[in-house]
């Protein structure tokens, strides 16, 4: 019976062949490590956020007179409302954690390089959408941190040349963050996830065109690919299990650790809390903003610090495969970058003091210097590595894989039959 239905559909729509090509038989490098699990996890968290968000929206009220109360209504009166809310608020952090690991993997293994630039750039676009969605969602509880966070971030647009003040008022629909702001943030917070879903589709189509990268950094010959199902489905689900344990530990046991105390006080436009901080996932960028002692300069530096990732395919001049895996200099730079991010995150968290400002400025300098020096260092490193000789295992891999590839000049592509 079900066979007949599938035949009927296949006659009109390429269901079986689509599933076979893109999922079950989709060729995937066998040497992927667990660092390659995080794309799937990001997709899972996206679904989780959309579903919990839709159910929360059934109880939430986007009105400055009611939104704080409606959150308390969800937390106290709605059946399992506390669970939905904590899943959603914890989910935001989980989303960024997963995405940052996903990005770090791409940086470490150099997966952003040709032919995967489009994947990297669509990913960058998705990161911006995610940041915007998270920022707007944070206003919705209408707590003190929501209010002052939105005030500070919308004020960044004062850096727009000539019409800065008008842009800020236009964004808010009011002279201060007010009812109009809350309502439009809610509307867009509901819309953006669907834009993200669209972006994810593009990201996936690009992935299935260029196929997954792998730790060796060399596109593997057919013999080293294995079907996605059951190998990577089983691996992804195992990774999901681990993720859910961590996630649920936070949801059920430490959900309030991810909510700033000040956000349990209703927004008060007349009084700013002593210590306002963004959510942890914005802290490094916030630190960069604060390190530049000039409004426009700070905003530009912060914008650049996010956008600079896009240039990675051009900044990295080395052809040596495998990213940091086989490149000792690049590896040092990668870890320096990670440490620098942590320092910036900490500096972004603490209230500014004389010494913290200096540390923040030093860290900001390191941040940009790393990117600026990358073209030079990567080229020198490549020359050095070639002079010195690549590690034997890379050499062997390159030789065997290229021979393999030249034996089958036409690589398997979408639409080919097995």
């Amino acid at each position, binding site marked *: 019976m079900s066979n007949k239905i599938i035949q009927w559909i296949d006659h009109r729509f390429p269901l079986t062949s689509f599933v076979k090509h893109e999922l079950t038989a989709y060729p995937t490098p066998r040497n992927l490590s667990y660092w390659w699990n995080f794309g799937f996890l990001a997709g899972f968290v996206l679904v989780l956020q959309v579903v919990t968000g839709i159910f929360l929206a059934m109880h939430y009220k986007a009105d400055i007179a009611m939104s704080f109360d409606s959150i*308390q209504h969800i937390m106290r009166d709605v059946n399992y409302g506390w669970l939905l809310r904590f899943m959603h608020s914890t989910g935001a952090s989980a989303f960024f954690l997963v995405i940052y690991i996903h990005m770090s993997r791409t940086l470490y293994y150099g997966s952003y390089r040709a032919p995967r630039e489009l994947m990297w750039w669509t990913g960058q676009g998705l990161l911006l959408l995610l940041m915007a969605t998270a920022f707007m969602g944070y206003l919705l509880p209408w707590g003190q941190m929501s209010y002052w966070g939105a005030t500070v971030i919308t004020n960044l647009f004062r850096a727009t040349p000539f019409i800065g003040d008008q842009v800020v008022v236009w964004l808010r629909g009011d002279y201060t963050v007010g009812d109009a702001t809350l309502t439009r943030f809610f509307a867009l917070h509901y819309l953006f996830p669907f834009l993200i879903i669209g972006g994810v589709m593009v990201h996936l189509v690009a992935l299935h065109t260029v196929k997954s990268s792998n730790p060796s950094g060399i596109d593997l010959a057919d013999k080293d690919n294995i079907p996605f199902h059951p190998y990577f489905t*089983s*691996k992804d689900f*195992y990774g999901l299990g681990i993720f859910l344990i961590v996630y*649920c530990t936070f949801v059920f046991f430490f959900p309030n650790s991810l909510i700033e*105390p000040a956000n349990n006080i209703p927004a008060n436009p007349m009084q700013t809390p002593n210590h306002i901080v963004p959510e942890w996932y914005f802290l490094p960028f916030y630190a960069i903003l604060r390190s530049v002692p000039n409004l426009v300069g700070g905003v530009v530096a912060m914008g650049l610090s996010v956008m600079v990732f896009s240039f990675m395919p051009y900044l990295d001049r080395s052809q040596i495969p495998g990213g940091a895996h086989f490149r000792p200099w690049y590896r040092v730079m990668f870890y320096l970058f990670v440490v620098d991010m942590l320092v910036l995150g900490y500096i972004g968290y603490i209230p500014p*003091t004389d010494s913290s400002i200096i540390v923040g400025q*030093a860290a900001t300098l390191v941040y940009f210097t790393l990117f600026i020096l990358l073209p030079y260092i990567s080229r020198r490193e490549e020359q050095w590595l070639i002079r010195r000789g690549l590690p034997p295992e890379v050499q062997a891999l390159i030789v065997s894989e290229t021979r393999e590839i030249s034996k089958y000049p036409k690589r398997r592509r979408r639409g080919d039959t097995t």
Partner: protein
Amino acid sequence: MNKLIAIWMLFGLALPAWAGDEVKLEDIKLDTSMAAVERGADTLMNVCHGCHSLKYVRYRDLLTAGIDKKKVDTWRGDQALDTAMTGLLPDDTAMQMYGKIPPDLSLMTKAREGGTNYVYSYLIGYYITAEGAASNHVFPATRMPDMLGISGATDAAQRSEIQHKAQDVVSFLAWASDPHEEERRRLGFYVIAYLFVLTALLYVVKKQIWSRLKK
């Protein structure tokens, strides 16, 4: 590498500067038993509720949580069970008396850095200054009088009694700010236990499937 060391050194400088302006809070072991919550509610209704509201808590919630019905009935008087525990002090009187409206207590233990420790330390943080005025270690600018009377208590027995009272009030406030916490933890225990079983199974499945691949 030198850069890294320099950063870590500066990092060390920044730390004490931040920690310096923090007041040391008492560290209490929160008693989440319903008996403590009930005692705390009793104190709160007699001492705090005159000025402070708990607008997100209804008298019925107290019943649901398991507080004695007779007590709840005395507290609510002729108000319906579904009335929120709003304050008894009109806003303009409060403005005249204190210059501000006493904050709502429904979320108090979640709304302060330090949570329950902060509220407890604040409640027992009153002392008499050398000039004979009352002040508070945790919140020197507070307008709230020393309602539990810790600043006037001299002998140890009296102090410890007041400290217990303050602890119970904090137990109640902790319950009020997160009434589903116990349910959440109970459910969480089962969810995590289930996830361990599921993840173990997924691990074995993954292991078996991958074992077919020849190196």
